[in-house]
């Protein structure tokens, strides 16, 4: 294998591994795409690189010019990916981060030189988005890439994740992925449906809104602009909530087949299992699940080691998506 010029060249081309031993239905194969294999440790490396490269192409960022500052709201993985990309490209990154994320997420941001601006944990990611927008308005000289509204986010998956799944698993019948910014589902989902319109796209989400108690009323809710502008409502076939306890149970069960992945991966696999359980009689399925990251960033949560009830209770107050 020839040496790579930059760590950023290692982003993408992640492997898919079959875990059908865990499928509840012999007619349903389940395969997991391991996005934790990206160099910054998550699927969001793809988005981070895409956002920065698009901004460079558009002239919003000038590579090599000193003093350029970016600001971004994130619950962790996008910030971590951006911190890595910005460190390599020479930009200064400010991240608006809710206080209730795992300590490893903070440490990873700091080790790549990102500056953390805290937002109240009780407001969840909505609070981080609000604060970042406010700061971006006050500092027009900062570059605000805004992953929730930037088409370069789903583009990374339309050009990367989706084609890789189609190349490695052309008999895919279902795509199951977590719904955060909606970038993965919009990009990979649209690409796959263009290849085969019968492919079903399932979104999995945590019950975040249940514990985000900083909302004053439901008008404080938030739907990523890319989801509405790029037809997310029409693209998705199903959207299902997976609760913390079930997410952690599946995160643990995945170790039976050797997979050490993050809690949102457990949630996504739980969604795939639900999909497998709901197939019609005589229907076969090949379900591809996107695993956003590996388990390293969640060791401090005790997800694999502590009493399940205790961990599930604690998980209600941390952001793991």
């Amino acid at each position, binding site marked *: 294998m020839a040496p790579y010029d930059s760590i950023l060249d290692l982003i993408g081309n992640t492997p898919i591994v079959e875990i059908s031993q865990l499928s509840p239905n012999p007619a349903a194969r389940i395969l997991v795409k391991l996005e934790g294999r990206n160099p910054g440790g998550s699927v969001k490396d793809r988005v981070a690189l895409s956002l920065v490269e698009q901004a460079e192409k558009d002239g919003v960022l000038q590579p090599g010019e000193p003093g350029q500052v970016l600001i971004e709201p994130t619950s962790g993985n996008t910030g971590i990916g951006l911190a890595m990309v910005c460190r390599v490209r020479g930009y200064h990154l400010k991240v608006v981060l809710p206080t209730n994320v795992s300590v490893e997420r903070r440490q990873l941001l700091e080790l790549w030189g990102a500056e953390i601006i805290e937002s109240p944990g009780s407001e*969840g*990611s*909505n609070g981080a988005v609000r604060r970042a927008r406010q700061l971006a308005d006050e500092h027009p000289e900062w570059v605000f890439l805004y992953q929730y509204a930037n088409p370069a986010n789903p583009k990374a998956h339309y050009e990367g994740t989706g084609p890789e799944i189609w190349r490695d698993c052309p008999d895919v019948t279902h795509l199951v992925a977590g719904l*955060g910014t909606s970038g993965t589902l919009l990009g990979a989902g649209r690409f796959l449906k263009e290849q085969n319109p019968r492919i079903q796209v399932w979104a999995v989400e945590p019950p975040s809104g249940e514990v*985000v108690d900083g909302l004053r*009323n439901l*008008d404080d809710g938030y739907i990523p602009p890319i989801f509405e502008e790029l037809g997310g409502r029409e693209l998705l076939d199903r*959207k299902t909530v997976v609760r913390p306890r079930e997410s952690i149970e599946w995160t643990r069960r995945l170790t039976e087949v050797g997979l050490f992945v993050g809690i949102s991966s457990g949630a996504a696999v739980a969604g795939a299992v639900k999909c497998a359980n709901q197939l019609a009689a005589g229907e076969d399925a090949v379900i591809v699940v996107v695993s956003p990251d590996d388990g390293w960033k969640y060791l401090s949560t005790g997800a694999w080691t502590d009493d399940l009830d205790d961990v599930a209770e604690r998980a209600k107050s941390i952001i793991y998506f």
Partner: protein
Amino acid sequence: MPVDVRLPTVLRSQTGGQSTVSVDASTIGEVLQRLVTEYPGMSGQLLNDDGSLHRFVNVYVNDDDVRYLSLLDTPVKDGDEISILPAVAGG
């Protein structure tokens, strides 16, 4: 028939702090109408003036979002668990 509805923190001020309430209904539309009748403070929060679901409200039957089922016509039966969640960001 009675079904249990789990409410998010943001709506619990309307129910005296109760996180789950029980209503008699056979569709999601009926569930929401019963809630609005019993707790008038929820009216503008759950439904728009034309009776459609508020854009920042997600309603689930046994954890499946009704927007991807039959929306307000989604049937509910005894033992189903209904959850209401505000739309929040992730990522």
